[in-house]
């Protein structure tokens, strides 16, 4: 492998890892703060990707915008979806056992998959990146790297930074963190915990949907994509340690590299490598790389 | 008078959690026929110390000896099988099982035989007999068939002790056995502990000072992870450091 190819694969690994991190942090957020394990989180990613495909012509036809307008519209819809879903469904899951949460959100996956099938069909689709991001940057003398992939990494980093700032520097973030550790006390301080949870949930959904929308031009849009990303996110959380954002980042990047280089060097074993990695880490550190708390 | 047999010994035990020192060089001895109480303010490190002695937490330094053997690296189940019984501050019973089954399952730990998959556990004489004995000792023999979760709080605390006794341990580590008990229940529990003293060594963590001074033969006082006194009750009561730190000038 020459240097340029190596560099390309590194950038790809980074992009994939950061995207995984974004989706996984939505999952960890909802679990860490509300104690709900949400199997349907991958479905939000899928919904995001299908939105990028299906909304684009609608947006172009009605408001007259391109990729970025579609992104904004999609985000708004995602927040609405998250808000309604939390109110109608997820708020009933908070006090339930994990097993029940697992099964009810599994049922939700099936519902989402079939609704998507009814509304948009089961075909695989491609999505074009916007004109200004469709070019390539030169790498070395012979190779180039797609600008759009750098854009994805950029968006993920920006969002991660944004989340970090919100959590550590704003009052909202402080309330969220307090609500995670002591629900009753926060309530008795006059904070509307129901509203807080709804906001957090909507944010988690929006993050996953945005990740899906942004990833669509690169990963293409296909029916099983939500489930695939969900399970990899589980591996991220297991390796990184639940509740640890730092761990999730490290684990996501690790998986990004192992998976990307694995596909290049050992194509047949590529799907299995991530799980072998997980097995090895579990052998060494059963609680993940960074235990929370 | 010959020195009593030392059943449990902690040597220079310490435990750090990151920057926080929870237990700082604590040594403690428990002899047969003796009740040794550990008292201290909240956060003094008592629970951590008990967890280290029982095997649930690994110490950062120091060692634990049980019946003469170094058990510092032994897991909690292994220590339990070697004769260390433990009760918890919050009821650690099986709420959905009957009182009898609670005791029987606890007693089963001493005669496990898991490979006999065809034999009904209820027909195992060893565990059923030990269960009945333990229940009787703690005064629960009239409620054997009741679902444990439906017992009164005092009865649950008694069950907690019964499960400890079911494996016939030599050492009893009791974490606040009197927690949440009314006067009558406290008397019953103290009578039980006085009775149990004879064959066992009892290490007791308690907040009820009256009870402690009535029943303990020796008291260790902990403050901020260190031992500030370890003596007979009257000496402890008179100790000026203890008075300052804990008893509030009695």
């Amino acid at each position, binding site marked *: 492998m020459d240097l340029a190819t190596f560099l390309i694969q590194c950038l790809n690994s980074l992009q994939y890892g950061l995207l995984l991190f974004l989706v996984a942090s939505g999952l960890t957020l909802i679990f860490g703060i509300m104690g709900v394990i949400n199997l349907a989180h991958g479905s939000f990613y899928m919904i995001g990707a299908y939105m990028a495909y299906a909304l684009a012509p609608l947006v172009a036809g009605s408001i007259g915008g391109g990729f970025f307008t579609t992104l904004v519209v999609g985000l708004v819809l995602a927040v609405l979806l998250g808000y309604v879903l939390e109110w109608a469904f997820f708020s009933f899951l908070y006090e339930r056992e994990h097993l029940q949460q697992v*099964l009810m959100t599994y049922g939700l996956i099936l519902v989402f998959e079939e609704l998507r099938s009814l509304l948009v069909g089961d075909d695989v689709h491609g999505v074009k990146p916007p004109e200004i991001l469709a070019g390539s940057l030169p790498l070395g003398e012979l190779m180039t790297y797609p600008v759009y992939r750098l854009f994805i990494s950029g968006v993920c980093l920006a969002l991660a930074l944004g989340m970090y700032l919100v959590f550590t520097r704003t009052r909202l973030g402080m309330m969220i963190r307090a609500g995670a550790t002591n629900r009753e006390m926060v309530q008795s301080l006059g904070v509307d915990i129901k509203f807080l949870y709804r906001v957090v949930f909507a944010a988690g959904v929006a993050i996953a949907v945005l990740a899906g929308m942004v990833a669509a031009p690169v990963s293409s849009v296909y029916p099983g994509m939500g489930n695939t990303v969900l399970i990899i996110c589980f591996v991220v959380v297991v390796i990184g340690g639940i509740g640890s954002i730092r761990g999730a980042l490290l684990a996501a990047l690790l998986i990004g590299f192992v998976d990307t280089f694995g596909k290049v060097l050992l194509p047949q074993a590529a*799907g299995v490598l991530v799980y072998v990695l997980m097995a090895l880490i579990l052998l060494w550190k059963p609680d993940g790389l960074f235990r929370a708390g | 008078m010959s020195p009593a047999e030392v059943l449990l010994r902690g040597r220079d035990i310490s435990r750090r959690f990151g920057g926080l020192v929870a237990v700082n060089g604590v040594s403690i001895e428990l002899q047969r026929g003796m009740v040794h109480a550990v008292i201290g303010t909240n956060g003094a490190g008592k629970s951590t110390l008990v967890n280290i002695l029982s095997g649930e937490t690994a110490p950062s330094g120091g060692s634990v000896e049980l019946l003469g053997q170094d058990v510092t690296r032994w897991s909690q*189940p292994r220590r339990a099988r070697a004769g260390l019984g433990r009760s918890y501050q919050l009821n650690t019973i099986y709420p959905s*099982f009957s009182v009898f089954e609670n005791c029987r399952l606890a007693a089963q*730990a001493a005669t496990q035989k898991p490979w006999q998959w065809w034999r009904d556990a209820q027909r195992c004489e060893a565990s059923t007999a030990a269960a009945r004995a333990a229940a009787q000792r703690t005064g629960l023999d009239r409620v054997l068939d009741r679902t444990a979760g439906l017992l009164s709080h005092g009865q649950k605390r008694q069950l907690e002790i019964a499960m400890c006794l079911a494996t016939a341990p030599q050492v009893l580590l009791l974490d606040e056995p009197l927690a949440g008990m009314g006067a009558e229940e406290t008397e019953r529990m103290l009578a039980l502990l006085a009775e149990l003293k004879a064959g066992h060594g009892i290490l007791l963590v308690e907040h009820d000072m009256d009870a402690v001074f009535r029943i303990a033969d020796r008291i260790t006082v902990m403050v901020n992870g260190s031992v500030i006194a370890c003596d007979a009750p009257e000496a402890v009561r008179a100790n000026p450091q203890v008075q300052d730190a804990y008893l509030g000038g009695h």
Partner: protein
Amino acid sequence: MSGVPASRALFVLGAFALLTLFPLGAGSFGIDLITKVMIYAVFALSLELLVGSTGLVCFGQAAFFGLGAYATYWLTPADAAPSLAWLLPSCMALAAAYALFVGALSLRTKGVYFIMVTLAFAQMAYYVVHDTPLGGGTDGVYLNHKPVLGALLDLDKPLALYGFTLACLVGVFVFLALLLRSRFGRALAGIRVNERRMRATGFSTYPYKLAAFVISGAIAGLAGFLFAVKDGFVNPELLSWHLSGAVLIMIILGGLGHLRGALIGAFAFAMLQEFFKSEAVFGSFARHWLLGLGLAIIASVALLPRGLVGVPAQVRERLWGARGDAAAEVDDEPG
């Protein structure tokens, strides 16, 4: 002290009697369907041991089922029908071996972690079978021969397979019923209810959990073997997490903590599937049967907290009000 309530024993005996008599009046479609339901029931029983009895929520049970099925394919020679006597135990052993591997690593984790890890390990097995030549391709492969037991039993014949499956189901049920009331089984129940107390009393809980995991894997492998023999065909979807989810739903639907819940749940799930897939009821919408199934899952978890097994009690409570201590279910009886 340990007698099983007469109503439960009667229910189970009645169910087995019905199953025995069923082929007399049923056509080949019915026999095929009920054979499938009985295989699901064995599969569900394997998970009930883990989830209902030991409290270990495993979301990767399909891996052991699928590996049992694939083992049937891998170990069946090309030229002659293999003997049941060695093929069946070998398939179970392979499934059990993977269960040993997965259990050894995942039982070090707890709670939600455990659910995720078991799911991930099942995916691992799925990808091995799906992507590598071991699996024979993503579309699946056909069995060369169906196993036989000398001249006595030819599992190629639907009626023989039905009878053999029924025998396996009864055998597994009786085995688990005995196991759960043995010392080992009571220890598992104790681990489920209060692992801390188990350890404080002197039980090393990890070996018990691992043993339960391996036994569960072996039984799931048995179900997989039967499934492979029934269809004569195996494909990677037998290891998919949708199947792991389905078997979990079966035992919840039937009622956790009761062996007969696994039977009821398997039957109910199979019927639900047939119902939602039926074009007679839904017309062309039937191809979206997963929607109906998904809604049914959500509804049953929300509305039937104790599963179908708990329905009589739920109805009683509604009509006559809860009766306090006497009505509290003492958890001692398996089955």
